[in-house]
């Protein structure tokens, strides 16, 4: 069964949200990672940290009713949950770099067997800047890369990244519409398979070598 682009994004986001634990401080990257906030299990409370200076950010508010002085890092208007707080960029990145963020979820252009991530620069094409991504990947306790498994059919999980790196050896987990892979000391491990994929499908669309866990789960 072929999933639409939108279905793929939601499938990945839903699986990502399963990684959050009650009380976690989570920083979501701009774009697809933001979708994961829609799927946080109802029985847990997660503090969403946004690098521009808010802990406890709510969902996105409509322009008409929003307080224009409260935004997330994407510039969306949000509100703040009970127990949350505001801070400056220095404190925000002390949280991030200092290891006080439990989990960060970022998009990726390429990830490789050594847990290297490239997601900020395509030379001569896309030069948006790294924003807070380099700090997040270096500092967060757990780094999840959520992305489509391939780009126009080409693998994004590689033996070695070819694009400029965001950080070295920092990725812990990769979640795509096909599978979940963990980056361990001895390389990549396939730990879960999407109900819409198979080991053969994953092998065909992954350049990197990976080992297959004994207890392979399905999502």
């Amino acid at each position, binding site marked *: 069964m072929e999933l639409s682009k939108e279905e793929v994004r939601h499938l990945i986001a839903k699986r990502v949200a399963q990684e959050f634990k009650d009380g976690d401080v989570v920083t979501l990257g701009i774009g697809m990672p933001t979708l994961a906030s829609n799927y946080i299990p109802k029985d847990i409370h997660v503090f969403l940290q*946004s*690098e*521009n*200076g*808010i802990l406890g950010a709510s969902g996105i508010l409509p322009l008409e009713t929003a*307080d*224009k*002085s*409260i*935004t997330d*890092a994407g*510039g969306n208007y949000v509100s*703040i949950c009970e127990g949350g707080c*505001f*801070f*400056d*960029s*220095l404190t*925000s*990145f002390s949280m*991030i*770099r200092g290891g006080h963020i439990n989990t960060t979820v970022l998009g990726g252009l390429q990830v490789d067997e050594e847990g*290297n991530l490239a997601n900020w*620069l395509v030379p001569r094409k*896309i*030069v*948006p*800047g*790294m*924003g*807070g*991504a*380099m*700090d997040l990947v*270096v*500092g967060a306790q757990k780094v999840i890369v959520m992305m489509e498994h391939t780009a126009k059919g080409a693998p994004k999980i590689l033996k070695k990244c070819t694009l*400029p*790196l*965001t*950080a*070295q*050896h920092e990725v812990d987990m990769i979640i795509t519409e096909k599978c979940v892979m963990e980056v361990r000391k001895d390389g990549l491990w396939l730990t879960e398979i999407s109900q819409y994929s198979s080991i053969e499908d994953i092998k065909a669309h992954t350049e990197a070598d990976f080992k297959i866990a004994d207890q392979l789960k399905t999502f």
Partner: protein
Amino acid sequence: MKNKVITPQEAIKHIQSGNSLMVGGFLKCGTPQLVIQEILKSEIKDLTLIANDTCFVDSGRGLLVANKKLKKVIASHIGTNAETGRQMNEGTLEVELVPQGTLAERIHAGGAGLGGVLTPTGIGTLVEEGKKKVTIDGKDYLLEKPIFADVALIYGSKVDPLGNISFHGTTRNFNTMMAMAAKTVIVEAETYLEEPMNPDDVVISGIFIDYIIKKEG
């Protein structure tokens, strides 16, 4: 006591062509506007903008890019203003991209009298090019140098006559660091208080602030 309140027209007398200019703000949030409008009307050019991002092509400090008032940008993100990337590729604008947390620390170092900061961010990436690597207790760090500007334009939600500032929502961003990191610091007050504010509310002390611009009137 010195009256710190000036008009935007008076403010630009403190800014010269070729100056380095810090501007607070994260995209459109918590960012000064009025002095930038005056710079656009003036002959001032060749500025080096130091900011988190270059905002949007038609908004705030993004207008400095669009109106070619800059020779250099030091920022963490330029992706929301296509004009920055265009001028960079054309070779008319120099752009130094700095990881956001590193930018915050470099500005803080500049204002706090520090010789630099050691950060693990950027190790093994293009960011480490030309920088000194320092190993502390077996871990590698990059030595990042302080940034100090000629002028800082910052935003405050409430500002009292002494220049004490309090903030609402996510408007703090880089404003708190920049308040300490420039020779001349000008704050744009969303609300100007006629009396000194409650000391418990002060986030930035007025001792860092040279001039105040009132948003209304």
